């Protein structure tokens, strides 16, 4: 069975500082990994994905994520946080190898950037 864990309910960072939002996963076989962001009363917006290849993936709005197979982690990072990055972030996983595989989401991490 697939699962995703986001161990931090909330992450607080000062503007201009680097940020990290943690994610670990469990899936049979090779994973497809995703990060999404959600603003109040809106749907989820795709940020980036890892399919294969380079372990460092770059996405929208200056975000990047690092895939670590041995630690089964896919942490979201940004070198310099902006107040506008404040939102709810979700990590998600899908098992590769099956066209019918569903995407499973974590419980979310609320990112708060203070000016």
């Amino acid at each position: 069975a697939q699962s995703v864990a986001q161990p931090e309910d909330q992450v607080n960072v000062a503007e201009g500082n680097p940020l990290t939002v943690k994610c670990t996963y469990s899936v049979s076989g090779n994973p497809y990994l995703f990060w999404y962001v959600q603003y109040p009363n809106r749907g989820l917006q795709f940020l980036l994905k890892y399919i294969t290849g380079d372990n460092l993936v770059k996405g929208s709005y200056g975000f990047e994520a690092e895939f670590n197979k041995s630690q089964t982690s896919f942490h979201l990072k940004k070198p310099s946080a902006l107040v506008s990055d404040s939102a709810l972030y979700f990590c998600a996983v899908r098992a590769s190898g099956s066209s019918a595989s569903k995407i499973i989401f974590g419980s979310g991490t609320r990112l708060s950037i203070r000016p």
Partner: protein
Amino acid sequence: DAGVTQSPTHLIKTRGQQVTLRCSPKSGHDTVSWYQQALGQGPQFIFQYYEEEERQRGNFPDRFSGHQFPNYSSELNVNALLLGDSALYLCASSGGAVNNSPLHFGNGTRLTVT
């Protein structure tokens, strides 16, 4: 190019009633997935439709059913509503032939059951 559209945006129903939510996928997408997002939680997978058939289902009771039409749009039906069904219902579309493609979400339908 229109993204995923959902209707209605808000809905208030009474326990025991039935509700139908609608979704039009992003242009070029043929797969529709439905998620339930309770307040303060992550989206929970309800089911996925492809080629007008339910391809996969999450851990939801049979009160939750769906349909996909030839134009790829989809409906989610919930019967015998319970207070616990109050949530944001999200529709997401993707290109079904490529299973590493990301989901594109609509803004959801906020269902309140009183």
